[in-house]
């Protein structure tokens, strides 16, 4: 039910993002989804890739600080109100979203929302009981 996401610390220096994507490209790693959070001094690049372990290994070899985090991917119809319907449920159950990002599936035309919750297991059970479609990691990696 959980998806592995890799996070990379990036200083605000020119060329760092290009360097990371080059390393991943050279290792044959495909990026499925990404989000970049930035502050004045540093950024955090969050990625879902087809092979998280390999990505972590090659980036660490090049000296990057990398860690793995468990996130939840929820599929909703790509229609107005889709995201809102999930957030309403979470709000009612007082589940905090630490951060989130979204992308649209190529074939099915559904939106996929990636969530990082403060209480991941509780969030999953709440969403399941409300019949939201939670994507398995394997499906996302090979999408």
């Amino acid at each position, binding site marked *: 039910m959980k998806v592995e*996401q890799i*996070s990379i*610390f*990036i*200083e605000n220096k020119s060329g760092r993002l290009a360097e990371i994507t080059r390393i991943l490209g050279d290792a044959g790693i495909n990026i499925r989804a990404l989000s970049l*959070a930035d*502050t004045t*001094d*540093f950024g*955090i690049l*969050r990625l879902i890739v087809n092979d998280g372990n390999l990505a972590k290994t090659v980036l660490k070899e090049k*000296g*990057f*600080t*990398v*860690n793995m*985090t468990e996130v939840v991917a929820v599929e909703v119809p790509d229609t107005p109100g889709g995201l809102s319907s999930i957030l309403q449920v979470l709000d009612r159950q007082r589940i905090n979203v*630490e*951060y989130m990002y979204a992308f649209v599936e190529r074939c099915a035309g559904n939106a996929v929302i990636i969530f*990082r919750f403060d209480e991941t297991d509780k969030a999953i059970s709440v969403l399941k009981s409300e019949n939201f479609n939670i994507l398995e990691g394997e499906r996302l990696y090979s999408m």
Partner: protein
Amino acid sequence: MFFDEEFETLPRPALEALQLKRLQNVLERVNANVPFYRTSFAKAGFSPSDLKCLDDLQGLPFTTKQDMRDSYPYDLFAAPMEDIVRIHASSGTTGKPTVVGYTRKDISTWTDLMARSFVAAGAHKGDIIHNAYGYGLFTGGLGAHYGAERLGASVIPISGGNTKRQIMIMQDFGSTVLTCTPSYSLFMAEEAKAEGVDFKGLKLRVGIFGAEPWSEAMRDEIEQKLNLSAIDIYGLSEIMGPGVAIECIEAKKGLHIWEDHFIPEIIDPVTGQRLPEGELGELVITTITKQGIPLIRYRTRDITSLTYEPCICGRTHARIARMSGRSDDMLIIRGVNVFPSQIEAILVGIEGIEPHYMLIIDRQGTLDTLTVQVEVSEQLFSDEIKVLQALSRRVEKEIKDMLGVTCTAKLVEPKTIQRSEGKAKRVTDNRKL
């Protein structure tokens, strides 16, 4: 103008005879009352009665800041605690400060020397002295305060901070003399400008600046922006506090060190050998009248030179040149003494932080800024921004709490800071003094 004309202009032979008598006396006292000196003299095979002339001082061992730390808090005191009427302290490298104690007579001597210093700087009875040095354990505030009162001037004990109020008070109270750190004076000038206050409209005539290194270029800037005559003062708590040495307003060329109370020497900081007049080296001071905590050949770590050339002001006391650096790695940031090792000790104490750091010192406008770069290790790294920002704030807070200096913590990628290979470069000082 003199405060104590007889002693300030004492002919050199008489001054040196007085020094010798006082030096012999202090050596007897520390030998009798301070176990540290008794042991160190014995180890050097020296007995106080061996000292026949001032040059014999060269044969005595040095006292270092480390010796003071090892004697924390009172072991170097030569007077019983019941005779100590004041205790001051300066920041130390391990969180423990360096402690000094003053007898009633020490306070009186300090007060006289500070009054002498004020007069040398061109201040007099009737002046309104705006004392913006910090009051407290730091010797600056109280030292200048007592001296100003002894002079008969009116003291405004405003201490540091709250710059807008400082400017209002300088304006309304008619301050004529300003005492603070040189960088703070420039900060005041900036604030005044923003408030629409012109220093040309104020009554300030003299500024007495010390407690951090500055330059001739800074003097020009201060004199122009604050419309006053800027005087360099030197002091350190171990020796006394402010007023150990000061420029005379007549020459503004070197700081007269009050030789009837202090014997200065310049040594090669590596070999410890005394250097000839005029050569640049580390300043070593022996206190010859202090009772509370007399120090013999104290290594100040300040780099300067010494001249005995007569001065146009008529004072016979030797002059030290403007301080040109430190022989150790101590940094002075906004008047606060900081050793990189202190910051390292704090960083090591924060769980998950590795002792790889870089200190970057800059001067933005007129104020010193300290940036502490810390590497983000895997253990520290979180994918949540707020966790990393909380970490930066914690580093900033611990440094502020322990050292009293404001800094900005900046997280950097791992392995980007140079590793220690014997002597790692830990400091980049971009200030142009």
